[in-house]
C-alpha cells in the first residue's frame, strides 16, 4: 500500500544523537546516571576503576538522545554528552 503523502505531510522529526564520554577514574559508582537515564543507555561495567568502583559503560550507544540528564546528575563530573549532528 502506498500513501500519497506522509502522515501530517511532514518529514520524520529529526532526533539528536549524543555521544557519551566517561571519565572512568573520576566515577564513584553511585549509579545515578545508570538509574535515571530515560533510555537505559548505561549499565555498570565489570571492570574496576582506580578508586575501586564500577564505572558505567555504554550498552546502547544508538539510543542516547542527548538529553543531558546523566551529565546533570553526575556528582563527580565523570560523564558528559556531546551532540552528534545527524541521525
Amino acid at each position, binding site marked *: 500500500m502506498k500513501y500519497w503523502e506522509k502522515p501530517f505531510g511532514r518529514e520524520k522529526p529529526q532526533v539528536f544523537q549524543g555521544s557519551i564520554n566517561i571519565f*572512568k577514574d573520576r566515577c564513584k559508582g553511585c549509579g545515578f546516571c545508570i538509574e535515571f537515564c530515560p533510555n537505559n543507555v548505561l549499565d555498570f561495567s565489570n571492570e574496576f576503576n582506580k578508586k575501586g*568502583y564500577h564505572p558505567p559503560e555504554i550498552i546502547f550507544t544508538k539510543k542516547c538522545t542527548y538529553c543531558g540528564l546523566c551529565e546533570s546528575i553526575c*556528582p563527580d563530573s565523570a560523564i*558528559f554528552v556531546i551532540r552528534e549532528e545527524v541521525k
Partner: protein
Amino acid sequence: MQNNAAHHPMEKYLRMDRMPHIWCSSCGLGTIVNSFMKGIKNAGIDTNKVAVVSGIGCTGRVAGYIKLDSYHTTHGRAIPFASGLKLANRDLTVAVISGDGDLFAIGGNHLIHAARRNVDMNVICVNNFIYGMTGGQNAPTTPLGAYSSTAPYGNYEQPFNLVGVAAAAGASYVARWTALHFHRLTDTIKEMAKKKGFCFLEVVSPCSTVFARKNKGGTGLDILREYKDRSIIDHEADPQKIPLGMNGEIICGVFINEDRPTFWENVQKGIEKRVVKTKNYKVIKNRESVV
C-alpha cells in the same frame, strides 16, 4: 566512544586541581554544585561578580571546589560574612551555600535576622538531616524517631521545618527542592541570582554514609528513588504546613516570591531623610551615586 582528552563542561567552573572532592559516593552534594553553577551560568551574570560563602561541614566544602570568589567561614558565620560582603560591595551577587546544621543550629540567629532585614543574598541550605562530617550527631532537622550517633534510641526532638522558619522570618523568596530535581533547582538558582532580597532555598539531599546508614536507608541511589515516589510539586503550599518526616510527602516548589524593600534600600532611605535638610546633602548624594 570514550575520549579522555575531551573536557567536561563543568571543568571551567570547578577547581579541578582539588578534585576528586571528598564527598562520599552517592552523596547529593556534587549534583547540587553542578546545578548551582549551571544556574549562575544561565542567569548570564559575570562570574567575576559572584561570591560564594559557606560555613563548616560537608556542604561547607562547596566554597573550596567552585571556581568563583569564595570564602570558607567559621562554623555558622557564613551569613554575617556574606551580609558584610554584600553591603561593602553591592555589585556582587552573594550566595551562601551551607548545611542545615551550620545555618540553622550554629548560625540560626544569623539566618533569621538576615531574613528579617531582607539583606540581598541567596541562601542555599542543603538539608541532609544530620551532621555528616562530624559523624552523624543529631541536627536540628533530624526527623522524630530517626537514629543518629547521639540518638541511639531514636530522636526525641521536634525538628525545624526550614522553609517555615525562613518564611516566618520574612524571606522574600522561599523554595524547596530535592537533589533529584536538578533541572528545577537550576531554574530556581537562576531566578534567585536575579532577584533582590533574601532568597532561601532548601535542597533535600541524600547523605548515604551517615544518615542512610544509621536509618537503614540504603545507598544514595535508593534515597533518590524514594524521593521520586515521595516528592510532590505544589507551588501553592503554605510553607508552615509542610514539615519533613522520615516518611510521607516531600512537598517541593517555590512557595514565596514577593518583593520587599531590601536592607540597603531602607538604609539609603533612612540616610536621605536624616541629611536632606543639611547643606551637605548634595555632596553625600553625589558620593552615593559614584559608589
